[in-house]
């Protein structure tokens, strides 16, 4: 890479600019991550209380048949694929999409359908002609329940109408700020109510009655599970972006170091040549 000192200086400048941007993006992602993590904490009581209530009811309404609980023969599978709206988050979206494609492999297009959260996933699936049934894009950095509830309701009612017979969520599970795990979890039909057997045996009065209550509660529970996954994915997104931008800043630093070295070498070479010329000229005058 023999370049003139001026070219090298120009490159250093440009890398420095990039480093400044990636550094800023890293810090922004860190701040957003902290906010989402708070939101995740704040949203936990709702899910926990709901599980508690479901466990109590399921105990005394054990034989109730509800579409969300019924295991049907699977003719069509629904996938909720959660990606981000924006890129520059490392392999975040690539991981999710690859995992989703793995799930689809060998399946006929009529036998599954996709609900896409996030512009990246939506664009990918629509561009490549995958069957899309619903989408939610432009979610806020710290999603609130109303921002996802219409998609969640759509999914749950489509399941209730037997448009598909099981639902998987494909998303990046948040482990910690630097680690995310791409998972495909089965959400519907709801099965983990079996915890109900260990529930406290309290004899509740039910108004209007167990069945009505359970019928109202189950869809909300399923929607809450979707909301929780979206929040989790958002935390992962900010974490992934933070790591990616941190790596980019580090790489830029290394690049600046090696460019500076090259610059010094080039400058030294120039000086050496000049001295040699001066000395040569002086010799010639003798």
């Amino acid at each position, binding site marked *: 890479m023999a370049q003139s000192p001026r070219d090298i200086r120009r490159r250093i400048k440009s890398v420095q600019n990039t480093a400044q941007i990636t550094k800023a993006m890293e810090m922004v992602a860190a701040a957003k991550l902290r906010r989402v993590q708070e*939101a995740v904490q*704040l*949203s936990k*009581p*709702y*899910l926990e*209380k*709901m599980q*508690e*209530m479901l466990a*109590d*009811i399921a105990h005394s309404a054990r034989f109730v048949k509800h579409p969300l609980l019924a295991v049907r023969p699977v003719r069509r599978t629904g996938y909720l694929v959660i990606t981000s709206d924006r890129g520059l988050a490392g392999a975040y979206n690539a991981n999710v999409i690859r995992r989703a494609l793995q799930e689809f492999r060998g399946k006929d297009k009529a036998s599954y359908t996709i609900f896409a959260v996030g512009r990246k996933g939506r664009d990918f699936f629509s561009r490549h002609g995958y069957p899309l049934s619903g989408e939610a894009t432009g979610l806020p950095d710290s999603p*609130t*329940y*109303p921002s996802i*509830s219409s998609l969640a309701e759509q999914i749950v009612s489509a399941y209730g109408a037997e448009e598909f017979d099981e639902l998987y969520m494909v998303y990046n599970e948040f482990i910690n700020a630097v680690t995310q795990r791409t998972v495909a979890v089965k959400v519907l039909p709801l099965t983990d109510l079996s915890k109900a057997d260990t529930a406290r045996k*309290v*004899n*509740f*009065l*039910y*108004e*209007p009655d167990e069945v*009505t*209550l359970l019928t*109202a*509660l189950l869809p*909300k529970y399923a929607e*809450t599970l979707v*909301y929780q996954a979206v929040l989790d994915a958002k935390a992962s997104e900010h974490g992934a972006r933070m790591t990616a931008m941190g790596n980019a800043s580090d790489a830029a630093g290394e690049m600046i170091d090696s460019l500076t070295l090259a610059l010094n070498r080039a400058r030294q070479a120039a000086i050496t040549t000049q001295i040699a010329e001066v000395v040569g000229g002086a010799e010639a005058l003798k």
Partner: protein
Amino acid sequence: MSTVPLQVVTPDRVVLDMDIQMLSLRGGGGELGILPRHTPLATTVKPGVIKVKLAEGEDFLAVSEGFLQVMPDRITLLVESAEVGSFIDMDRVSLAKERAEKRLAEHADDVQTERAKAALQRANYRTEAHELSLKHGEVIKHRIEGKENIR
């Protein structure tokens, strides 16, 4: 007078967590008044205005539909949204109301009208809760602001 802890929980956060003397709301089976040491009860909750009685007086919340779980020693209200009357932003409510009214006037199809009607109803409940809360001296607001460790 004895009290019982009430928690109002929404998917986003815990809206209210304090000891109350009585809770009045509309349940799936009709009007309900819950006092401490109530028998275990689980019910659906209809959207509307709920009344909470504290030692200092009464206050009001606007809630969406949800669920209520009563234990002798605690009450949990699970709703999609809940707002203490004093904290309702009336500017936003009137905006929402205008929007809903406009939609009602424009649209004839069923889905849109249903939605607009629900939105209008929500706006009315929020207005009612806000006014009632102001009228009764914003008890919850004062209780919360009395504590140091509240945002």
